[in-house]
């Protein structure tokens, strides 16, 4: 390898790490991936230091000047296919099935979206309906939860273009959930279980992925990232609960 190739290698590792971190991979997996990619160079020092909000990479050897890059990660979500794709590319690169240029091009032009956004919005309706059924709701509960899920999907669709703070979006979303669920039950002749409908509908927003990741990070010894993620999950859950409470308070409903 020549000097320019080392630069490209570090760039590749930084891009791969950034994509994984943005899409909700665990910290130790990001660090492992970066180290695997860097180890192809055969140089002495390969360091990766990853936090939940950014990453630092250094590649060095007595023979060359050390190369260090820092990347800041601002948006975080859950996108499992992106993680899986990057994992595959880095494994192929490490095993020599891909050349440096090929891997670089593949990571740079990574297209991981498999489902159109309207399908995801429709899926939201089914998630809230079926979760209500799973928790023991009857057919009426499920239909109402589907209606609530539809409103939630409309809300998500409306806010997709706007750069709105995630917490505020969840707060208003859960507010909509409880207001509409209580509203549907006000219709004469309709009787259902309010708590089952609300619990089913907020499952779309509940930070289940964040909690699972937070646990795995903490128990792997990445305490700073794990702690940050646990805090994130709790704040998110509190926002959702607050939204539900405000909605119920407005509708004069009671959680039974």
């Amino acid at each position, binding site marked *: 390898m020549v000097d320019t190739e080392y630069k490209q290698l570090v760039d590749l590792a930084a891009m791969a790490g950034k994509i994984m971190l943005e899409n909700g991979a665990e910290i130790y997996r990001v660090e492992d991936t970066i180290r695997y990619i860097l180890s192809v160079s055969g140089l002495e020092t390969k360091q990766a230091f990853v936090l939940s909000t950014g990453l630092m990479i250094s590649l060095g050897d007595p023979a060359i000047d050390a190369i260090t890059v820092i990347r800041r990660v601002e948006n975080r979500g859950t996108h499992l296919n992106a993680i899986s794709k990057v994992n595959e590319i880095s494994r192929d690169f490490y095993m020599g099935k891909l050349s440096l240029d090929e891997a670089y091009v593949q990571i740079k032009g990574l297209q991981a979206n498999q489902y159109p956004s309207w399908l995801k919005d429709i899926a939201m309706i089914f998630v809230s309906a079926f979760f209500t059924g799973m928790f*023991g709701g009857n057919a009426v509960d499920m239909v109402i939860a589907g209606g609530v899920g539809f409103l939630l999907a409309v809300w998500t669709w409306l806010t997709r273009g706007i750069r709105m703070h995630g917490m505020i979006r969840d707060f208003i979303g859960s507010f909509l959930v409880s207001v509409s669920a209580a509203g549907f039950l006000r219709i004469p002749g309709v009787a259902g279980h309010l708590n089952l409908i609300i619990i089913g509908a907020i499952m779309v927003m509940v930070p289940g992925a964040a909690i699972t990741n937070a646990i795995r990070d903490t128990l792997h010894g990445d305490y700073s990232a794990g702690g940050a993620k646990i805090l994130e999950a709790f704040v998110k859950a509190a926002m959702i*609960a607050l939204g539900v409470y405000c909605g119920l308070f407005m509708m004069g409903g009671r959680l039974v």
Partner: protein
Amino acid sequence: MSILIQCIFAFLAILAFSIIIEAPRKCLFVNGVLAALGWAVYLAVLPYSSVVSATFVSAFVVAVCSHILARLLKVPVIALLIPAILTIVPGAGMYQTVYNIMNSSVDTALYSLFSTLGAAGAIAFAIFLVDAVVAAIRRGGRQKRLLRYELQNRKRK
């Protein structure tokens, strides 16, 4: 009978949820099956024990299955674990806690807070246990693999 219906709903709910979080296409069906399995285990254990131990057993079964299936499908473990574990994540408990705090009914708030923490801890411990065992098994395998690559590379040169 009602357990079966609830498990079918768990399957469908997680199938739809996997689309929202963009699980790889080949995982969609498996995620649903794992979630249904987890929920079935939870419901089956619940009458004989508490919520916390039922959650623990369910999380343990799901974690073991995800580790095995992730190897078979060649995807990262979290692509299966995150959707499959979602059915038993105590989302309801978290918001019941805050609701009761806002309603200033401290007894119920404390009760739901501790059952939520207990369930979350049970999931954490189950995942950790399985992760630790898998890591111990893998360490041996990885060293053998590395040695093999080194030999191949030497031949190539």
